[in-house]
């Protein structure tokens, strides 16, 4: 049964990727897309569009979606709180504040993703330091620190927008806040991949302890979990995955919050199933959302963060409230 559900999710991922490859400014037949995929070294226009424009974008969307959903599933499990997402680490708020100030100061656009990444990680370190208790992480302190620091940095972003004399600068800040993968390519993905892979590796190390953490720290310790180590691993994994996502696509909300809930309904809550299912569903949803964002008001693009909020909020409310009623 579980294998069948994973096969179904895998099929959905492939369909979402293919649908995303179809979306774009020029209309290309599905057969031509397939042919271009099979012949990467072909020099025709379709191959160039597919390999240089659309495929990197689908890959970036998949990586961002998988990273955010994995981070969400890890953090929700560790904190025993279904309402947290990876941005609780402060990564997005820190990155947004740094990027807003950088845009205001006239820093060149190509430097912004790296700046956002570093600022996001530094903020995560501050939040983690505030959440530290004894040798481990205190769940309530983490939530309190994450929300407080995020509020502080959000105020800095608003300040930067308010102080911006140039409409272009304000527009650029807003574009980052809304999230987008426009103009991203293979080089951006190559920059982020090492951090995504390290984050995924840390997540794989911590995931087996996740079920035990969900029944409380005391029980987790008595079944042999090094709770402090597992908590730091999860926090480091989530921060790296979120920071890499922010560097690639700006602020994309709701994936880290909603997708673990969807995955839970499909494969249950056991971490060994939930984490891979969350990553796969996150990749599919983000790729699909990016395709819709590119198509719905073409040739303009709807910011993917806005689109996901429109779809995500009602979907999340339905899923969560329905689950409460059936529990």
């Amino acid at each position, binding site marked *: 049964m579980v294998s069948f559900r994973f096969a179904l999710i895998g099929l959905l991922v492939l369909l979402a990727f293919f649908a995303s490859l179809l979306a774009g400014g020029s209309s290309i037949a599905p057969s031509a897309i397939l042919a271009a995929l099979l012949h990467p070294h072909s020099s025709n226009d379709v191959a160039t569009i597919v390999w240089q424009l659309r495929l990197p974008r689908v890959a970036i969307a998949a990586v961002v979606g998988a990273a955010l959903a994995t981070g969400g599933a890890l953090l929700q499990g560790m904190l*025993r709180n279904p309402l947290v997402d990876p941005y609780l680490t402060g990564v997005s708020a820190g990155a947004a504040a740094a990027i807003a100030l950088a845009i205001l100061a006239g820093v060149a656009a190509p430097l912004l993703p790296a700046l956002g990444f570093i600022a996001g990680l530094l903020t995560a370190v501050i939040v983690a330091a505030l959440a530290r208790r004894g040798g481990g992480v205190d769940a309530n302190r983490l939530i309190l620190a994450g929300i407080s620091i995020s509020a502080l940095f959000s105020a800095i972003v608003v300040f930067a927008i308010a102080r911006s004399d140039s409409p272009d600068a304000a527009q650029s800040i807003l574009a980052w806040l809304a999230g987008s993968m426009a103009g991203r390519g293979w080089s951006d993905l190559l920059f982020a991949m090492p951090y995504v892979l390290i984050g995924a590796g840390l997540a794989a190390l911590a995931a087996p302890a996740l*079920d035990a953490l969900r029944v409380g720290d005391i*029980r987790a310790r*008595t*079944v*042999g979990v090094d709770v402090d180590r597992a908590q730091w691993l999860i926090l480091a994994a989530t921060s790296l995955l979120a920071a890499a996502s922010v560097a690639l696509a700006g602020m994309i909300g709701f994936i880290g919050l909603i997708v673990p809930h969807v995955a*839970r309904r499909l494969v249950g809550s056991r971490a060994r199933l939930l984490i891979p299912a969350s990553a796969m569903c996150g990749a599919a949803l983000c790729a699909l959302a990016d395709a819709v964002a590119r198509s719905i008001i073409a040739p303009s693009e709807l910011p993917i963060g806005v689109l996901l909020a429109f779809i995500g909020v009602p979907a999340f409310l339905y899923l969560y409230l329905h689950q409460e009623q059936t*529990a």
Partner: protein
Amino acid sequence: MIALDGVAIGVPGRTLVRGIHARIAAGEFLAVLGPNGVGKTTLLRAMCGIRPVLEGTIAVDGRALRSLSVAARARAIAFVTADDAMIESLRVRDVVAIGRYPHHPWWEWNPNPQDHEAVERALRAVQMTREAERLFTTLSSGERQRIWIAMGLAQATPVILLDEPTSHLDVRVAHEILALLRDLARDGRTVVCVLHDLNDAAAYADRLLLLGCERMLACDVPDRVLVPQLIEEAYGVGVLRVDTPQGPRVFTAVRGE
């Protein structure tokens, strides 16, 4: 076998009990008794290694507890606590399977046939096989209690410590659980259990460890521990002892004005 030599336990800034000496053999059921706040739970947590002792040593099968790795400790000692936990969307079977964690290296994510067998055996022991597929959140508090015990059993350790395993349970289920613990001891496990009901403890346990204010008052067979003088010293309340064919029983002696 678990041995406590001159153990002192406490909470930050306060020593609760000093001078605990006890040797609990394989096949023995020891009940830990004492008034609220005296340090019973703290003692159990120290005995499973999740809380340090202030003085003395605790050893399991001749090896000092603090010399064991976290995983080795978890393969030697299970600890069942009654603390509640909010667990979204985990099935009963999944919760019990968490007890199998110390039997896996970190890279092994999937359960093996021994895990399935241990989980089934544990569910059978607490008579919850029929509820295995239910969501944990849908269980009553008594049923949850049984699942926590099953999780401890699935851990398949030679020593099992239980903190008030009969709280939330009705009389019949409480006695079934105590009988199960006695059977576990008869099968060769070391069972240490915090209980509040003195008569339940006398009926099922081989020995009773009675904690009083800052010291261990006794660790002996029920006949020598359920003595009105000792009980009054521990709890500050007079009791009437009645000797029955099943052993001693005590009743609180309530004095009116």
